């Protein structure tokens, strides 16, 4: 059988069970997308994983992980100015970082066309919020395709690329977490491989490209025209579809994306309730030529949309202007704005509105024996755990610890409780600087991951130097972007230490985090320094390392043991160091879970009795 990567580039048609994120890549290949850039973030990193199943020599496009989402957007934009169809993809909050660049896309003439794939995260499964980026797409005046399933992801990417090319613009493919990660059998079309030539046709005559004063105003005017034509394209392509229900009451429901699937599941629970459904495949601009007759032909219309009431507000305003008498229902309480519109959630909402129409009422979770919660944790052997164990010893109870984004964020949990405030990528030094102002008694320590250092961490560090703030910054260096699945970052080429040296940071300490005593000493010393001091606390990501080792021939897994004769049950290993490999037995004895322990031995130094042995 051929490898998955080979299939993604084969010219012939085929069917395959794939994730939404994988379907994106086949669509890139078929549309002859030439340049692709990204910064990793859930729910999109599996797009990159699928790209990487195609060997670099055979890959029909250029791909890079850029240093952050803003730069990734700029790289894709630049390539598209040269006439290459380009794509940038990243997660929901990545758009905040890319914003300054992104909002210009609607204004610019982009000869190659640009597809922006954004993975929003309703439910905040892997993000610091569940922001609804449709607000921003609307502000940037871009067309937004919203697929509900892997089949639609594939089809809509191709439509978005087509529109982007025709209109020489950017188009957005808005995915959400469970659309990215859904699996389904998709029929892929045949395609004609192109010659894989990069265009270099930049011509300022295609502009204007310098949006200053009145030129920016002209460009804004043009962006409206593009949107009007986009609405026509959407209509011609039939992207908003009518699903005739046939119930006697005149009820209609307008719904985009994945909530459409939830709605269909809920309506399938019972026979009899089958309102008409207008499924929106494009959520911006709204096609009022389709929406208007739908409103006019129903007495009641529910707008069922996840997160904010963006479609609802526009439709209500439209109905008011047009004097349409249909009763339009939408969100009625705060909870309607919160969380993913799963089938359960949609069931609750529909049942609240039309209780008589359901035989099957929503159920509660059946209260059984309460199962202890299982929060995410740092892995066995994680260098961040050793770092926290050591750093904690250098801190006074009143000192303030500031977290940043990455696996080390998990240090906020007991038993470590290190990192007491978290904002977004790269925010720790800035926040710590503010916390240090006028603060004589409580010292401030900030944490920062190494991928984040390059992403958005450097300006905060420069500001600390420039304005002489008094903080200690600890770089949690593991050589990879671990939390999102081990993507490489700039640190492999440009060592963090060299950057700090170049910036003129005077006090830089560094050690391997497994050397806990050294690290405690270094942090103690660093915190006594006035101004900025930096400690680089390094250890390779042990999950990545162990996975690589286990693929080597002759690999045997090691693990530690507890010598019961020596153990005095102080529980430093299980309750303070807190490696998940340790098991606390009913009788207070400690054991090792051999499925979990990787034999790293970083725990051995924490036992005061030396009871942990190989």
């Amino acid at each position, binding site marked *: 059988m051929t490898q998955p990567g080979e299939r993604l580039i084969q010219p012939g048609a085929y069917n395959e069970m794939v994730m939404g994120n994988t379907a994106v890549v086949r669509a890139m290949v078929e549309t002859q997308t030439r340049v692709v850039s990204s910064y990793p973030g859930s729910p999109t990193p599996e797009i990159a994983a699928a790209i990487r199943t195609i060997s670099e020599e055979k890959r029909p496009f250029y791909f890079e992980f850029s240093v952050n989402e803003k730069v990734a957007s700029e790289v894709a934009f630049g390539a598209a100015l040269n006439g290459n169809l380009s794509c940038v993809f990243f997660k929901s909050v990545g758009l905040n970082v890319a914003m300054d660049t992104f909002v210009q896309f609607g204004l610019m003439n982009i000869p190659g066309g640009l597809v922006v794939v954004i993975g929003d995260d309703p439910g905040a499964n892997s993000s610091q919020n569940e922001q609804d980026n449709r607000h921003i797409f609307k502000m940037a005046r871009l067309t937004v395709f919203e697929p509900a399933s892997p089949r639609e992801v594939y089809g809509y990417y191709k439509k978005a690329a087509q529109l982007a090319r025709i209109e020489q613009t950017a188009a957005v493919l808005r995915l959400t977490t469970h659309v*990215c990660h859904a*699996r389904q059998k998709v029929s892929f079309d045949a395609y004609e491989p192109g010659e894989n030539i990069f265009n270099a046709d930049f011509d300022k005559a295609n502009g204007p490209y310098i949006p200053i004063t009145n030129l920016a105003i002209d460009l804004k005017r043009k962006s409206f025209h593009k949107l009007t034509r986009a609405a026509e394209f959407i209509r011609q392509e039939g992207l908003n579809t009518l699903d005739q229900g046939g119930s006697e009451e005149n009820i209609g429901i307008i719904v985009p994306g994945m909530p459409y699937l939830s709605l269909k599941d809920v309506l399938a629970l019972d026979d009899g309730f089958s309102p008409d459904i207008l499924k929106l495949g494009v959520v911006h601009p709204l096609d009022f030529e389709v929406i208007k007759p739908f409103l006019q032909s129903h007495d009641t219309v529910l707008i069922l949309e996840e997160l904010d009431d963006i479609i609802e507000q526009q439709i209500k305003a439209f109905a008011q202007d047009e004097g349409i008498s249909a009763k339009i229902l939408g969100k009625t309480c705060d909870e309607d704005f919160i969380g993913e519109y799963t089938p359960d959630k949609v069931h609750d909402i529909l049942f609240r509105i039309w209780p008589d129409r359901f035989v099957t009422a929503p159920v509660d979770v059946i209260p059984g*024996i309460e199962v*202890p919660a299982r929060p995410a944790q740092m*892995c066995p052997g994680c260098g961040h755990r050793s770092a926290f164990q050591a750093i904690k010893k250098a801190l006074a109870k009143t000192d303030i610890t500031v977290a940043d984004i990455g696996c080390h964020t998990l240090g906020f949990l007991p038993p470590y409780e290190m990192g007491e405030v978290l904002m977004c990528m790269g925010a720790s030094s800035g926040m710590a600087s503010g916390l240090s102002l006028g603060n004589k008694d409580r010292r401030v320590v900030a944490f920062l991951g190494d991928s984040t250092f390059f992403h958005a961490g450097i300006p905060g560090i420069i500001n600390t130097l420039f304005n002489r703030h008094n903080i200690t910054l600890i770089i949690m260096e593991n050589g990879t972007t671990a*939390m999102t699945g081990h993507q490489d970052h700039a640190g492999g080429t440009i060592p963090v230490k060299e950057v700090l040296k170049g910036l003129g940071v005077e006090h830089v300490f560094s050690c391997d985090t497994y050397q806990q005593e050294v690290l405690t000493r270094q942090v103690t010393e660093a915190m006594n320094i006035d101004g900025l001091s930096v400690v680089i606390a390094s250890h390779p990501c042990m999950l990545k390392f162990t996975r690589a080792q286990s693929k080597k021939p002759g690999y045997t897994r090691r693990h530690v043991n507890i010598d019961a004769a020596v153990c005095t049950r102080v529980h430093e290993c299980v309750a303070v160091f807190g490696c998940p490999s340790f*098991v606390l037995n009913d009788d207070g004895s400690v054991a090792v879970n051999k499925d*979990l322990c990787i034999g790293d031995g970083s725990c051995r130094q924490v036992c005061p009795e030396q009871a942990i042995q190989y």
Partner: protein
Amino acid sequence: MKEFNIYITGVGGQGIGLLSQALLQAIDHAGLDAVAVDTHGLAQRGGVVASRIRFGEQVYSPLTMKHRSDLVLAMEIHEALRGVNTAVKDSGALVYLDVSWQPLPVRISGEKPMTNDDISKTCHARQVQVFRVESHKIPDPRMQNMAVLGTLAGHGLVRGVEKNHYLSALEAVLPEKIREANINLFESYMSV
């Protein structure tokens, strides 16, 4: 059949991905149009992970509704009970591996760990059929998922999916190096 829902759960790092992938392939090989979804992201770092697989004439979203799963597969004791408490329907079935990956609150704040007894009591009260897979009998922990798959295949717990579908799915998803050993173990559980 209107819908058949499967909820697969475990702890991030246990590798439930291969189990759900193999089962999804088997369902596909049986000619059923299925949808599925896995957990990716933060929870993969030692948190609770769940995959769902659905098929039938009226199935749309890959997400399963509360207490509508016909079958729950769990790779760990605590997650087995959590799956029963949130996902399985009354008179559904549970197949679980009896290993324990102790959750943090058990180790650091004295919460009570779950036992096999807790599972059988809860399932009995709700007429959920229980199939316990004993981990100590599995020669290599890396093949635990094959024991679970073999058990559910042997008892015909997924309607319309036959032995040959499982076998051809395993041929497709397992890397060559480990294929034979895994399939042998699967078959030994299938025929118990």
